[in-house]
């Protein structure tokens, strides 16, 4: 790509001169490490000369068609290319990793994408911009194709070698790296050394005769098969991964996998999943190192903090029959199509009422100063699971809001959260958190505190269970389990128990709210 222009003319001439002098030789060249390029200024600038995998694999010249040469260039393994390294695909989907962009640079930050999923991409079209140390660099596409999946988002740190995106490329391109004779210099000049390919691989590729990428050679080595004995089905007799696998199967070295194109079609939707086909077939178990990004990083940080807090949990069941009736009557009387009544606003309001009586649960603990700040406002945070992840916006000053106002505010926050449009105001300043895990499922959870808050409440799912009444009859009741997590440095069991009783009272007997109405 970028290096193509620089290398093309001079290299081609130099190589031609050199090759003509070797034209008499028919056997593959001995692995002499350095090619003199006839221009000393190259050496001065090229402090990291290029080692080309593909040049070693195959290289046909304008003058000498189909002459297979292994021409290893230069010594150092490190090189750079803003071209993507290519896995030879069997079915057309390739993973484009971040190619090495300079010696010693292990990772880059992705700045922005120039393409999106579904876009048609031309060869050498810029795909994205990354930043490494002092330079921003455009990464261009090695091939023509369509973007099928963008793996990283701007702001992510991408390690060299990790896949940036996946592309569907045309079949003919995939297995044919030296398509046109004049374009040979592409493969030579632009190629990439994967940082995992150490100089030992140079030795492998120098055995001569068989065309194969180091990845395929590695695979052959893993199975203990001699790559020279494998019949290659790729272009120019190149040995492909499938050929190695077929050979290994034939030799009884492994069970036949159900799909040979396993590697290229990965169901890789996130760090957590492994390729299903691999697991099912059982012919390749590999440990996978999952990079810690975004969500995990934040969780690690916050949970490490939470781990320092001595939690205790208080569990209680609340009879929600009255609440169910209340919600139904709200909904019946509701004239506003925008408003939809749910249980949550009522629970938030009653929580605030209970907090008024037990304000210690609405406080913050400052460890350094060893002081408790009892917060004046009831800013109740509501955990929301959105497609973008977990967010906890809070409703401010609930003690001053009516249930209807809470309903509207909650809807507003939910909409913003779904649209990824919450503002800093919405998510800061919370004093207590309500986690409605019951919306997803579960009887109850045991939540961890959202430091510096001192209490958190997890609400389980409403379940219909049989209950005894005083006259020993059984009747069905809607029971909700709650689990209150609290900081034992600030709160004790008795306080939390009493607080919970108060809250439970309001929910089970909503008319009690009227007593406290101002």
């Amino acid at each position, binding site marked *: 790509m970028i290096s193509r222009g*620089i290398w093309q003319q001079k290299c081609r001439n130099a190589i031609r001169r050199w090759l003509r002098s070797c034209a008499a030789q028919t056997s593959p060249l001995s692995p002499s490490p350095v090619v003199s390029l006839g221009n000393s200024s190259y050496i001065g600038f090229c402090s990291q000369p290029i080692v080309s995998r593909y040049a070693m694999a195959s290289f046909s010249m304008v003058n000498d068609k189909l002459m297979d040469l292994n021409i290893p260039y230069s010594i150092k393994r490190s090189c750079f290319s803003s071209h993507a390294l290519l896995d030879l695909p069997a079915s057309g989907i390739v993973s484009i990793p971040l190619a090495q962009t300079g010696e010693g640079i292990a990772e880059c930050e992705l700045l922005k994408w120039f393409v*999106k999923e579904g876009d048609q991409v031309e060869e050498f079209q810029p795909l994205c911009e990354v930043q490494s140390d002092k330079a921003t660099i455009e990464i261009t596409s090695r091939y023509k194709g369509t973007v099928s999946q963008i793996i990283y988002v701007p702001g992510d740190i991408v390690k060299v070698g990790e896949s940036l995106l996946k592309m569907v490329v045309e079949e003919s391109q995939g297995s044919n790296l030296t398509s046109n004779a004049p374009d040979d210099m592409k493969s030579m000049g632009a190629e990439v050394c994967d940082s995992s390919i150490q100089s030992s691989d140079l030795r492998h590729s120098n055995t001569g005769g068989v065309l194969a990428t180091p990845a395929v050679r590695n695979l052959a080595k893993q199975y203990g098969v001699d790559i020279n004995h494998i019949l290659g089905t790729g272009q120019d007799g190149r040995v492909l991964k499938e050929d190695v696998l077929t050979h290994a199967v034939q030799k009884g070295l492994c069970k036949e996998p159900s799909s040979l194109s396993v590697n290229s079609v990965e169901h890789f939707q996130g760090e957590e999943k492994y390729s299903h086909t691999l697991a099912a077939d059982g012919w390749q178990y590999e440990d996978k190192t999952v990079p810690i990004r975004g969500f995990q990083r934040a969780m690690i940080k916050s949970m490490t903090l939470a781990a320092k807090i001595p939690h205790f949990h208080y569990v209680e069941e609340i009879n929600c029959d009255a609440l169910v009736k209340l919600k139904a009557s709200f909904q019946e009387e509701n004239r506003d199509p925008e408003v939809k009544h749910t249980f949550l606003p009522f629970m938030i309001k009653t929580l605030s009422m209970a907090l008024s009586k037990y304000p210690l649960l609405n406080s913050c603990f400052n460890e350094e100063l060893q002081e408790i700040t009892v917060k004046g406002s009831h800013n109740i945070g509501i955990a929301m699971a959105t497609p973008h992840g977990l967010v906890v916006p809070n409703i401010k000053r609930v003690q001053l809001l009516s249930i209807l106002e809470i309903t509207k505010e909650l809807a507003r926050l939910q909409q913003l959260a779904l649209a990824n449009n919450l503002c800093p105001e919405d998510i800061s300043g919370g004093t207590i958190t309500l986690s409605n895990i019951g919306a997803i499922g579960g009887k109850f959870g045991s939540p961890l505190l959202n430091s510096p808050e001192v209490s958190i409440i997890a609400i389980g799912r409403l379940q219909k269970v049989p209950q005894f009444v005083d006259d020993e009859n059984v009747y069905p009741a809607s029971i909700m389990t709650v689990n209150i997590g609290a900081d034992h440095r600030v709160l004790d069991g008795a306080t939390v128990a009493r607080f919970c009783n108060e809250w439970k009272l309001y929910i089970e007997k909503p008319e009690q709210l009227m007593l406290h109405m101002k």
Partner: protein
Amino acid sequence: MTISQTRNVGLPLMKLVRWKGVPILQQLHLEEQLLRTSSENWCIINDGANDPTIVMGISGFIFTSYEVGLVPRNYIVGLDGLIHTNRKPAQLLKLDSVLNDRIPVIRRYTGGGTVVVDCGTVFVTFICNKDAVPGLQPYPQPIMSWSSLLYALVFRGFGDFSLRENDYAFGNHKFGGNAQSITKNRWIHHTSFLWDYEARNMAYLKLPARAPEYRVARDHLEFICRMKDYMPRSVFVDRTIKAVETHFSVRPVELEAMETNLNSKFPHSTKLLTEQELEAAAFESHFEKALSHSL
């Protein structure tokens, strides 16, 4: 033809712009535009910016994903559920002083670190086609090396000049910082030289978490130096131009003549951060706490 002219025959053309005291934002805008829309080689020398300005590299700022032309937002809810503000200003600047003293903060289109520039700073920028310098590969290290060879010519006899990681230094002391941007067919390498500086301006900057080894464990004022202690300003500019002439056939151009060629609708990535953005960044630590949560 004179001897120097005969020497120039065969060298690629480079247009030279010489400015004095042009605001850095204007310079950065022009540079980016030339990088992306021109097909010629350029050298821009700006002898001093005007008022003190903080210029930050582009990384660490949050932008929307794939739109060409950056649309920075103060905050987005990331995939991890956390609000990401532009936390970089908070990490690298003493925001309270910056806000108090109303120092402008610019995010530039190249990567690299943060500098504070003023009338004591001299800027030298090279914008080249990828094959302008024969044999030079358009990657960060080679470009940096090439530039250090050029400046070695400039400083020969004036000081113990060397390229220390990505900085230009006399001995152990940095006097010039570099940044680059490499596109498909062109590259830009620009340097801000510390001709002179004021200690109180340097005080706006925090030391970055990742520092070159030669600077580790040293305070800001301990590892920088003033160029004026080594050579006169005009001498520096003249010698730089002469050094450039060894690689290019240099043709000076006037700013006015160039401006008319430039497309005024160009979407710049270089941007002056607003006061609100800086204030939002100053609050970012609260967000992290508020959002860390687990069911």
